[in-house]
């Protein structure tokens, strides 16, 4: 949680956001049938589907007004002006490049990349290995300089993958190579690991961490996913190269 004085400043903005959000809920609720006919039934206001959202929207915007008002009084006009000047200055850019914020970006990109980009298209085992390998190594090395480099590499790789999926190359390649997306993921994993090795190979302590990261990136997916897939009979979000191999072993299907 932020410090007390920063909290009050943040309250001004969160209060305003909630005021707007409350009004948005009300505006959406007003589009719902209030006294009109819906599904052949003539509505009355107290059965309307808009009733509860209207109540919720009104309360959220009222609480937002109270919060923002209290925060403005607490912070004071002068400090508020200084805050606005800070937001318009280059200091904001400096803040957005601090190590803590970069760590946040790294985690967000990893999660969003995993869920929105890789998971619907790449074999779940492979995208889990990629996620864990990048996530564990980035933070376990505990070196912000390395984290930035590894994050930049992962981001670049993700942009390449995004382009590959957006251009529909996967469908074109599928005719000649089975599981092209999975092979792309394998290439991504191997190149990331190779890049990480080049960065840390001179430091013995990091070499040990590298090996640990590698083991922990591979072992958990092979422990957790089979439990879901073969014992709980939960099909993986995307089944490709590795799942096909495991299926062959599990059902002895050679």
């Amino acid at each position, binding site marked *: 949680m932020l410090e007390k004085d920063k909290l009050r400043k943040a309250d001004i903005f969160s209060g305003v956001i909630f005021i707007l959000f409350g009004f948005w809920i009300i505006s959406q609720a007003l589009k719902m049938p209030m006294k009109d006919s819906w599904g052949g039934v003539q509505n009355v206001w107290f059965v309307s589907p808009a009733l509860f959202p209207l109540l919720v929207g009104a309360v959220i915007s009222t609480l937002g007004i109270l919060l923002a008002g209290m925060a403005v009084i607490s912070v004071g006009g002068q400090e508020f002006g200084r805050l606005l000047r800070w937001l318009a200055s280059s200091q904001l850019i400096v803040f957005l490049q601090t190590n803590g914020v970069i760590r946040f970006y790294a985690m967000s990109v990893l999660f969003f990349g995993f869920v929105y980009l890789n998971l619907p298209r790449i074999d779940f085992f492979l995208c*889990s290995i990629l996620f864990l390998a990048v*996530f*564990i190594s980035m933070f376990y090395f*505990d070196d912000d300089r390395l984290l930035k480099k590894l994050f930049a590499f992962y981001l670049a790789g993700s942009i390449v993958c995004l382009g590959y999926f957006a251009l529909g190359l996967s469908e074109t390649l599928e005719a000649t190579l089975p599981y092209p997306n999975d092979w792309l993921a394998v290439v991504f994993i191997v190149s990331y690991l190779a890049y990480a090795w080049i960065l840390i190979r001179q430091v013995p302590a990091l070499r040990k961490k590298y090996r640990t990261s590698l083991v922990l990136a591979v072992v958990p997916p092979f422990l957790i996913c089979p439990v879901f897939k073969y014992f*709980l009979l*939960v099909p993986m979000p995307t089944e490709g190269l590795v799942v096909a191999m495991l299926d062959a072993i599990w059902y002895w299907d050679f």
Partner: protein
Amino acid sequence: MMLLERIGTFFTIILQLVSEPITLAILFGSVLLGIIFGAMPGLTSTLGVALLTALTYGMDTATAMVCLLAIYVGGTYGGSYASILINIPGTAAAAATALDGYPLALKGEAGRAIGLTTTASAIGTSISMLFVVSISPIISYFALQFTSFEFFLLAFFGILISGTLTSPDLVIKGWISGFLGLFMACVGRDLLQFYPRFTFGFTQLDSGVEVVPVLIGAFGIPQIIQVLKERFQIGETQKLQRIIPEIGTVIRNVPAIIRSALIGVGIGAVPGIGEDIAGWVSYGTAKNTSKHPETFGKGELQGVLASETANNACVGGAQIPLLNLGIPGSPPAAMLLGALMLHGVTPGPMITFEHPTFITEVAAILLLSSLAMWVTGMLLAKQVVKVLRIPPPIFMPIIGMLCIIGSYSLGLNIFNLYLMLPVGIICYFLTEMGYPIAPLVIGVILGPMADENLRRALMVSQGSFMPVFTRPVSLLLFLVIVWTVISQFQFYKNFKNKLVARLRRKKSVTAVGSNGPPAEE
């Protein structure tokens, strides 16, 4: 006769559970997993229950409850390990334990402290189990008299009180958080007319927001980001000697234990308030009533005893509103509610008719869990402590992966993940800005109940709010809600202070008057 029958059912269920080796293995395994989750700073029992819910999907309801209640009990207790050995609470529930637990460890009495927390936690859970069995029928009986207005007001009260008591900063933030949860509950087709609300044309949203994935996102993702962003480092672990059950100390402190257990059960029964508050209130009470309050914070055994008994008693307390009213008493209980719904059990006043032995079953599982926790704590504490040496950057990404596969497996729907992640990121920002997450979760869960009952009640009364004032329970709930809101404002506090000061003045004038005028010299 009814009582004897219930006691008979209770022991039959215990015998049934104990006689099945698989159930026993699940019980001990889940308790151990819970202790590990509780012990590792950054992981919580709520997250443990959330992740395990996915694994219980294929189990029958009784086994699933064994699994989930055992991890809940184990997780609440496990938090004390990190509190005592590294002075960092494994869970918020064990924060008060650190105040005296760590000084004890510094004195070389870590084994004694862990032995005491193990025994106290087991006793706390067992006492709370007694309340689950004895109070539930009474609450259930009263709840059956409730009409839609009462249920609407009860849901509203749950959200407000949770927002009031769990907010780390301003109370308004707790309320906003609760209403955000209510908004999320509005998404999907409404329950009375099936009108699509806030779905934006996504058919996946027609059935509403899936509760469990949202809860996993709300508790899991912010936790991972917080721990790794702030470069959370685990300090040096104090040495752990032989674990002693400390039964003598426990016997000497029976009244304090009973008081702490009552505090735990009472706080657990209030909707949405977790084990952390129970621990702090009990610790504060123990300090205030002690003959030597100056020893608290310096390694006082009573301090450890008070917080640990209360936080584990809260587990049972949280089951009381959950099972009888369908209102979760704590964040892990909210997860349990989600799990129960997955298994086709709808908690509420009708539970005693639809599943007559269910509450007794829960009580039996609580008792077995507390026994399993005591045995596991006594035998495996030294091994479990080793997990405290695992650095967070190693286990947090794995937890992230578990959150994802767990959320997906509950509905076999990738759309759940598309919702879970933004919810998690928003919850992270909310937490950073001092908004509590528990009211949001309670709001998501109680939203449908509040919405449906408000409209049903108004349908019956033809749009009149008068029944709120003519029905005694409604009126009481309404007044409590109004008081809860008003009591947070400065004008009320000023008015109260003025009133108290005036009453005191009046009292002193009366006292002087009754003693007669001072004698003239």
